[in-house]
C-alpha cells in the first residue's frame, strides 16, 4: 500500500519551497502512511472493496501529453456546446490543447501548478480549506501529491455566460498511472458560472484517477456544477467534490457516473451560512461488472438553508451500485428544509444495489425527509403502454429510459442533456429501436 507513496520524493512537486504547501502535503502523506487505503471494515466503504486498486502497481503520472492531440480533444467534445475549455492530460494542464481566449476579463482559469509556483499567496486562503479535516485515504493521497489541476476564480459580480469545461483526458499507458488532479474553484460574491468537470478515458487499459475538487461559493454566488465521469471501462476512479456555501449561495450539482471498473465519488456540501441552497442530482448507469459508488453528505450548519437531493440508478448485467446519502442538521440549523430521494432500477438478476440514505438531525424546527426505492417498472405503466399496442420489450425500454431521463432533464445545458441521452441509450440498450422511438 505504501507503494502509492513511492516515487513521491522523485517527483518535482510545484512550490515545494512554500511552507504552507509543504505542510499541507506532508501532513496528508503522514496521514496516508498511517491509515492507508480504506477497507470494507470502514463503515463508509462497507460495500466498496478497493483491494483491486491496492493490489496493483501504479506509478505517478508524468507531465507529458502522451500523444493526446487536438483531434482527440475534438473527439471528446460535447456536440453543440460552446465553452471555455481547459484540457488536462493525465492530470497536467495542457495550454496548447486548451481554449481560454474568450474568458471574460478578470476570470482566472489557470494551471494550479503554475499558480502555486508563481502566486502561491492567491491560493493560501482556500486551498485545502474547503475539504473536511478528516477524510479517507484517497483524499490524503491526492493532497500528498498535490501539484496540478485547475484553478478557477470568478471575480465578484461577474457572470460567465458560456460554460467552462475542465476536460481531464486520461490515457492508459504502461505502467498504469495514477492521475491525481487537484482543482480549486472560487466563486467570489455575487458571481455566477456553469462548470463542467469531465473525466474521459482514452484507450482501454487500466489507470487510477484520484481527483479532488474544492469549491468555495461565496455570498450570493451561484454555480451549476457538472461532474461527468466517462472513464474507460478498466479504469478506477475515485473523486471528491467538497463544497462550502456562504450566505445565500446556490449550488446545483449534477453527478453522472457511467465509466470505470470501480468508481467512487464523494460529494460533500457544507451549508455554512443562512439562506444557502444546494441541489444535488445524480445518475449512475452500470453494466458489465462495474461497481459505482456515490457518497453524498449535506451538512446544514446554519439556519434557513435548503437542500434537495435526487439520485437515480439503473443497473444491468452484473453491475453493482452503492448510494450513501447523509443529511446532517446541526443544532443551530433551525428551519432547515432538506429532501432526499434515491431510486434504483435493477434490470438483471445479477445486478445489486446497496443504498443507505441517512438523516442525522439535532435541531427540532426542521422539515426533512428521505426516500429510497428499489424496484421494477410500474406494472400499471407497463400495462398502459401495452394496451396501446406497444410490445412488452419496447414498453420496458421506454419506461427505463424515462426513469433515467428524469434526472438528465434537470441539467440546464441542452447540449449536455443531449449528450447524456445518447450515453443512456448506448449504454443500457443495445437497441436501435429505442432511438427510433424517442
Amino acid at each position, binding site marked *: 500500500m505504501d507503494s502509492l507513496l513511492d516515487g513521491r520524493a522523485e517527483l518535482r512537486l510545484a512550490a515545494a519551497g512554500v511552507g504552507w504547501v509543504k505542510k499541507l502535503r506532508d501532513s496528508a502523506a503522514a496521514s496516508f502512511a498511517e491509515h492507508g487505503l480504506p477497507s470494507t471494515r470502514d*463503515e463508509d466503504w462497507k*460495500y466498496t472493496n478497493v483491494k483491486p486498486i491496492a493490489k496493483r502497481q501504479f506509478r505517478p503520472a508524468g507531465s507529458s501529453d502522451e500523444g493526446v492531440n487536438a483531434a482527440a480533444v475534438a473527439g471528446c467534445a460535447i456536440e453543440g456546446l460552446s465553452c471555455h475549455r481547459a484540457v488536462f492530460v493525465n492530470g497536467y494542464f495542457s495550454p496548447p490543447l486548451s481554449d481560454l481566449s474568450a474568458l471574460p476579463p478578470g476570470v482566472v482559469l489557470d494551471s494550479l501548478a503554475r499558480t502555486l509556483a508563481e502566486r502561491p499567496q492567491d491560493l493560501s486562503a482556500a486551498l485545502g480549506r474547503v475539504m473536511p479535516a478528516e477524510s479517507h485515504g484517497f483524499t490524503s493521497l491526492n493532497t500528498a501529491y498535490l501539484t496540478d489541476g485547475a484553478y478557477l476564480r470568478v471575480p465578484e459580480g461577474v457572470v460567465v455566460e458560456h460554460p467552462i469545461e475542465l476536460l481531464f483526458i486520461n490515457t492508459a499507458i504502461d505502467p498504469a498511472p495514477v492521475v491525481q488532479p487537484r482543482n480549486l474553484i472560487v466563486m467570489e460574491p455575487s458571481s455566477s458560472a456553469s462548470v463542467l468537470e469531465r473525466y474521459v478515458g482514452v484507450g482501454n487499459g487500466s489507470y487510477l484517477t484520484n481527483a479532488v475538487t474544492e469549491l468555495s461559493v461565496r455570498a450570493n454566488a451561484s454555480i451549476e456544477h457538472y461532474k461527468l465521469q466517462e472513464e474507460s471501462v478498466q479504469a478506477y476512479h475515485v473523486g471528491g467534490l467538497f463544497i462550502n456555501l456562504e450566505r445565500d449561495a446556490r449550488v446545483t450539482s449534477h453527478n453522472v457516473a457511467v465509466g470505470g471498473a470501480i468508481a467512487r465519488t464523494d460529494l460533500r456540501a457544507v451549508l455554512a451560512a443562512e439562506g444557502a441552497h444546494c441541489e444535488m442530482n445524480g445518475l449512475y448507469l452500470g453494466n458489465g461488472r462495474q461497481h459505482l459508488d456515490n457518497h453524498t453528505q449535506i451538512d446544514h450548519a446554519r439556519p434557513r438553508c435548503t437542500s434537495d437531493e435526487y439520485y437515480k440508478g439503473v443497473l444491468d448485467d452484473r453491475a453493482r451500485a452503492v448510494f450513501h446519502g447523509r443529511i446532517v442538521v446541526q*443544532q443551530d440549523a*433551525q428551519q432547515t428544509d432538506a429532501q432526499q430521494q434515491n431510486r*434504483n432500477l*435493477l*434490470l*438483471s*438478476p*445479477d*445486478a*445489486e*444495489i*446497496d*443504498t*443507505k*440514505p*441517512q*438523516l*442525522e*438531525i*439535532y*435541531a*427540532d*424546527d*426542521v*422539515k*426533512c*425527509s*428521505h*426516500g*429510497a*426505492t*428499489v*424496484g*421494477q417498472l410500474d406494472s400499471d405503466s407497463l400495462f398502459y403502454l401495452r394496451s396501446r399496442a406497444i410490445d412488452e420489450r419496447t414498453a420496458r425500454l421506454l419506461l427505463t429510459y424515462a426513469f433515467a431521463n428524469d434526472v438528465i432533464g434537470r441539467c440546464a445545458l441542452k447540449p449536455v442533456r443531449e449528450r447524456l441521452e445518447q450515453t443512456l441509450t448506448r449504454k443500457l440498450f443495445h437497441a436501435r429501436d429505442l432511438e427510433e422511438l424517442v
Partner: protein
Amino acid sequence: MNSTVSDLDELVKREYEAGFVTDIESDTLPPGLGEDVVSIISAKKNEPAFMLEWRLQAFRRWQKMQEPGWAQVKHPAIDYQAISYYSAPKQPGDGPQSLDEVDPKLLETYNKLGIPLEEQKALAGVAVDAVFDSVSVKTTFRETLAEAGVIFCSISEALQEHPELVRKYLGSVVPTGDNFYAALNSAVFSDGSFVYIPKGVRCPMELSTYFRINAMNTGQFERTLIIADEGSYVSYLEGCTAPMRDENQLHAAVVELIAMRGAEIKYSTVQNWYPGDEQGRGGIYNFVTKRGACRGDNSKISWTQVETGSAITWKYPSVLLEGDNAIGEFYSVALTRHMQQADTGTKMVHIGNNTRSTIISKGISAGRGQNTYRGLVKILKGADNARNYSQCDSLLLGDRCGAHTFPYLEVSNPTAQVEHEATTSKISEDQLFYCMQRGLSEEDAISLIVNGFCKEVFKKLPMEFAVEAQKLLDVSLEGAVG
C-alpha cells in the same frame, strides 16, 4: 381526552413509577466473570452437561470478541468484571409449590407493578412468567396451557423437562458467536421463558413475561425461546421495569423465535427499564438481540415494541424470512427524553420467494434524548418477488434532542420492490393551532397529536398493552414540550 394537565411543573418532575427497591434476601454471586462463574451458574441450575459445554464455548468466543462501537450511542466503558452475573431471591426449601409459598414481599412487588400474578386475576386472561433478577418466580396458568399441549415455563425448567427441545432449537437463530452481547448472554444467561406450541394449536391465551431487575450491581441476562410448530399461533407479551439506582445496570437478553410452516408468532414488548434521571445518572443499558426465523412456508413473525425506558437501548428485532410467502413485521415506538439514547430498528432478510416485510418505526425525541432508527432490508438473489415497505417517522420535541435515521437497503434481485420513506419534523404550528381553536389546551393538543403519531403502532398491541403504552407515553411526555 382524559389527561388534562393541571400542573405542568409537577409532571415534568414526575418520577419513574416503578422505581422502588424490594428488600428481599437474595442469593447473589460476587462480581466477576470467568469460566468458573459460568460453571457455577450451570451447576446452580442443575443443567444437563451439554449446556455447560455450550455456555463455555460461548464464553470462549466472547473473550475474543470486541464490543461493537458502531451504534449512535455514547456511554462510559463497561467493566464486565464489576457485574454480578447471578442473583436470585433466596428461597427456603425447593421453591414455591403454590402461590402461598411465594415470598409475600415478592408478591407485593408484583402487585405494585400491577401484574396479575394471582389466579383470581384470571379475568385479565394473561398467563405470566415473572422473572425477578435472574430466576423465574412463578408461572401462572400452567395447567390450562398444558391441556392445550402448550409448554410455557422458565427455560431452566425446560432444560430439566424438555432438554431435547431446548437442545434442538437453542442458538439456532442467534448463534453463540452472533455478536458481543449475544455471546455474553449465551455464556451466563440465568433464566427466561420457554414456549412450545404444538402443531395446529392456537394458544388459548396471551402469554406474558414480566422482567424486573432488583438487586444492585447485577446484570440481567435472560434468554427467551419460542417455538411455534406447524400451523400454530401464539401471542407473547413482555414487560420490564427496574428500581432507580445511580449506577448503570446491564441488561443483555437474547430472544429467539422459530415459526414453522403456517405458524404465526406475535411478540409485543413494553420496555420501561429505569431510564436514569434528568442528568443522565443511572439507568439500564439495554443491549438486546432479538431475532425470529420464519422457517416454514406461509409463516409469520410480528414484532411490536414500545421503548420508553433504559438509558441506552441497543436493539434490533429481526426476521429471517426463509420460507416462501413468509411475512415479517416490525412496529416500533421509541421515546427518548432526558439523556436517553436509543439506537433501535430491525433487520428483514428475505430468503424465500414472495416474502413480504413491513417496517413502521416512530421515534419521539424530547429533552436531550437521541433517537436513532437503524434498519437493514436485505433481499437475497434467490428471493423472487420480495416486497418491503418501510416507514420511519421522527418527531422532535425540544431543540436539544436528536433524531437519526440510518436505513440500509441491500437488494440483489430485480423482481424485488423495496420502498423506504422517512420524515423528521416537529409538531407543526398549524396542527396545534387547529386543535387549540377547537378548545383543547396546548398539552392536550400535543398529547393528541403524539398519540395520533403512534397510532399505527399502538393498534398492533394487544388491548391491555395498548392502554398501558398510551399511559406510559403520556406520563413520559407531559411537560416535555412547552
